């Protein structure tokens, strides 16, 4: 049992509780309130500190790449349509451990395929603490990772296979859906079963990499009448397709903003994030860009870029916690500091969205104190 005493508690849903205590029993949060006294509990003093729910990166590549093997484990590019692939089987716990994500406050990552396949496979969610894998896996089949970016063209077109053009990308998407749906249920392949369960039964949301305006417009046009929840990944030009984003309530997992000239290249207008906030669209951040991950620091940097662009600090916090949890369907366990939820908690020396002088001094995952 632990009691985190006297911290400024950021619940993750926009609420901030001043000078508040959190009681942790086993793996979960038992109680939140002022002046908690519990016999036998270890005290963690959080006076003067900011306490946050663990941050969540919904589409990380690192952790499932299998470095230094010759072929990345999240890149099954033997075929552009492999929705049946389960990222759970590609997790490399040591690769996750090496990143020390929790030192930047990130306690949960969704491990996702690269952007090279039109449908790359199913996201698996795991905790970042170096604990036994049995404890770490939060959810498999958490989302279907798709991509309509140039990476698909570059992967297959160069080998003279479909798709060689953006036309080919969307033709393949349309045909893949039509074929699966027009096949009688008992005759469907496993691949087609996954596609039908995602698009007809909404068994899991879609996380689709799309970056430029024509990729985003094409995707949202083709998905207009689909019921499945669409979340853009990377989405750097989301502001150029704002109307469609709002109308279709599309989620956004903003790619690593500071990577390889994205701002200069896309003329990115992050002030438009406020329109998404106002409309209730979910927004999240990731350490990846173009399907490639960078280190743990860039997650915070993207959050800071959103704040710099005028999004309120606690709204940004939601984008780091509650929103990605909801996107992945794991908000019953993580994403906010509430009674009954997993004790994934970071204690910062300041508010990491508003000041750089904010360092994680204590990290707890599944109720275990890492440092």
């Amino acid at each position, binding site marked *: 049992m632990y009691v985190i005493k006297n911290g400024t508690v950021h619940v993750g849903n926009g609420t901030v509780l001043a000078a508040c205590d959190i009681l942790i029993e086993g793996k979960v949060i038992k109680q939140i309130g002022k002046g908690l006294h519990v016999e036998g509990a270890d005290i963690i003093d959080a006076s003067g500190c900011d306490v946050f729910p663990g941050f969540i990166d919904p589409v990380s590549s690192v952790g499932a790449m299998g470095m230094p093997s010759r072929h990345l484990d999240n890149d099954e590019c033997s075929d552009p349509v492999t929705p049946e692939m389960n990222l759970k089987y590609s997790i490399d716990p040591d690769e996750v451990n090496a990143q020390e994500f929790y030192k930047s406050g990130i306690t949960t990552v969704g491990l996702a395929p690269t952007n090279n396949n039109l449908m790359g496979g199913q996201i698996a969610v795991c905790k970042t603490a170096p604990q036994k894998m049995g404890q770490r896996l939060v959810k498999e089949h958490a989302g279907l990772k798709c991509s309509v970016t140039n990476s698909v063209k570059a992967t297959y077109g160069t080998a003279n296979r479909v798709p060689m053009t953006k036309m080919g990308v969307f033709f393949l998407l349309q045909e893949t859906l039509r074929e699966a749906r027009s096949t009688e249920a008992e005759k469907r392949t496993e691949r087609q079963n996954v596609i039908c369960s995602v698009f007809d039964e909404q068994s899991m949301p879609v996380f689709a990499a799309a970056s430029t305006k024509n990729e985003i417009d094409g995707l949202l046009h083709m998905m207009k009448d689909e019921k499945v929840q669409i979340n853009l990944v990377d989405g750097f030009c989301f502001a150029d397709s704002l109307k469609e984003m709002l109308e279709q309530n599309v989620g956004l997992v903003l790619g690593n903003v500071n990577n390889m*000239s994205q701002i200069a290249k896309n003329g990115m207008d992050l002030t438009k994030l406020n329109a998404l906030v106002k409309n209730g669209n979910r927004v999240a951040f990731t350490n990846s860009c173009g399907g490639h991950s960078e280190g743990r620091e860039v997650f915070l940097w993207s959050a800071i870029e959103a704040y710099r662009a005028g999004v309120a600090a606690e709204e940004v916090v939601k984008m780091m916690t509650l929103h990605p949890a909801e996107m992945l369907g794991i908000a019953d366990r993580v994403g906010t500091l509430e009674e009954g939820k997993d004790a994934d908690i970071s204690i910062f020396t300041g508010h990491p969205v508003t000041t*750089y002088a904010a360092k994680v001094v204590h990290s707890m995952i599944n109720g275990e104190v890492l440092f």
Partner: protein
Amino acid sequence: MGRVLIHGGTIYTMVDGEKPFQGDVLVEDGVIREVAPSIDAADAQLISAEGYCVMPGLFDAHSHIGLFDFNHDKAVDDANEMTAPVSAGVDARYGMNPKARELKVAYEHGITAMLFTPGSGDVFCGQPFVAKTYGDNIFDMTVKAPAAVKIALGGNPKNTYGDRNQLPMTRMGVAQVLWDTFRRAKEYLDKKERGEEQSYDANLEAIIPALKGEIPCKIHCTQYDMLTAIEVAKAYGVRFSLEHAWGATDYLEEIVESGCDICYGPIATYRAAGERRKIDVEAVKLLDDQGVNVALITDSPILSEESLYHHMGEAVREGVSHERVLRMVTVNPVRQLGLEERLGSLEAGKDADIILVRGRIGLDTDAKVMLTMIDGEVVYTAGEYQC
């Protein structure tokens, strides 16, 4: 270009030992004329700095903007010649696109000058230069060329030539090329000074200014390769900086003892075996505490130029004070390159590269440049700036 008075800001001169103070800066013909608590210049055009910090423009000591272009699907690489491991003679100015969009991002974020360098695909990669970030013609924008000898150790040159079954395929091969080239350059210089006849060698010629101590070597290296760099550089008595320097916490004593400079960054690559084993930002604090000249670099456009703020921020997160971190993107890199007569601080006689900032860059995450002046010309004002 007449006289301009920047009035009423909090002046960060970046001069050693000088604390920030309320004051004015007088600029004339592109040069700083005076910095003082109060300057009487009724005839000068007025720029109000009320409520803002006034600082020298920021300096990024390791950039490839305009040499790499990621704005198209097929990335353009004019940074790596990669036709011979010793390509010391190529001049980065000829690979640089002065219309690169990233330059606008740079000066809008207050970065007014940087060192543009060839990449790291060769052992001797070419000649970096220092230039302002605003202008039309890179030769006019240039402050100093060549500004250094760019050298690279480790995976990049190894992979370039390893793929061709050519020396160097290994890190020991890279060390061999390094030793051999310095030896040949030294012999070449000695012969030249003795007036002996020899055939002209453009690549060895390019190394001479480093052997003479006129410019530093900028040596791309990480982890154990830092010891190799130190050993060779010491043997030939060249001034040098270790570029990137990931893993420096394991070699603190050797770095301090060697007297070299450090260009740390980019921060935020994923961690993997080998060169990416340790990304130890805390080294910035430890080295600075021990008197090493540390600069922070973005490697832009690998990481975008605006991430210079985040690089400063990560150093602050590890305990570097705001005052010290500002030096790492102003006077420190400028001194490494011997340009302190012109850049890096607000003092009479220096280039009028000046920025007005709301908040504290590197500490407040929402700090914002309101105005950028380069060579006395206002090249950017933020939408919300009111003069």
